[in-house]
């Protein structure tokens, strides 16, 4: 079961701040622990920035979820940018094509419980992450 998600169009730096704020609000509402709130907001910040910088913009949708046993938060990051040709490379710590630290994708994956990526060159990238309450 999941509630209606809240969507934010990601077009500017300011929208990345809005994504952090939305995810923080939801994480508090589903009662994630303080450390898990911090982890999911950090992961969302990394992935939303990638949507903006590499995806050329897109949208983020965050939803509180409940699998009957646990509550959690699920976030989708979608863009119609260039896609990622070599996923293994993109997930290598330190790999960046944009002068970053190359820790966004790999680090975000470590910070969440479930991480799913669908990408196609020339079509875009959609990443879905979930963090469950312990």
């Amino acid at each position, binding site marked *: 079961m999941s509630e209606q998600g809240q969507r934010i169009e990601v077009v500017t730096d300011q929208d990345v701040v809005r994504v952090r704020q939305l995810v923080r609000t939801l994480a508090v509402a589903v009662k994630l622990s303080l450390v898990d709130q911090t982890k999911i907001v950090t992961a969302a910040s990394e992935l939303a920035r990638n949507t903006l910088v590499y995806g050329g913009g897109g949208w983020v949708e965050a939803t509180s979820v409940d699998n009957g046993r646990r509550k959690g938060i699920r976030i989708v990051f979608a863009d119609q940018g260039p896609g990622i040709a070599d996923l293994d490379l993109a997930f290598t710590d330190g790999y960046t094509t944009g002068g970053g630290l190359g820790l*966004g994708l790999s680090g975000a994956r470590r910070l969440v419980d479930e991480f799913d990526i669908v990408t196609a060159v020339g079509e875009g990238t959609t990443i879905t992450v979930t963090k469950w309450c312990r």
Partner: protein
Amino acid sequence: MERVPVLKIGDILLVSIQIDMEDQVALQLQEDLADRIVATGCHGVVIDISALDIVDSFVGRTLATIAAISKVLDADTVVVGMRPAVAITLVELGLSLPGIRTALNVELGMELLARERADYDDEEEDADGEDGAETPAVFTS
């Protein structure tokens, strides 16, 4: 765009980040600090991040860059007040912030800078003394 204020307290510049910075604001802070270090001749920078509930790789990189720029401009940087949950998350993200000195709060950060500056000044004096002593042995003519 908001701006993060830079305060001068004695020989130290204090930056207390109180807002969730968009990336441009972080970059602007980097520039503002470099300008203020040069304008004031301060030898220390304390960056208080106790109000930040996350530090992602962009802010982490900005802090590291500020520390590097300060160093080149003869100022030391200490990042203070990192929350425990932020520290845990940073390490899992893969960011260990090498090259950044930290202290638990502003007061301890200021103390650390004052101590290092005193050590540094001592060394400078020692070095001067030695130079002086060696001068007669230097070949002239």
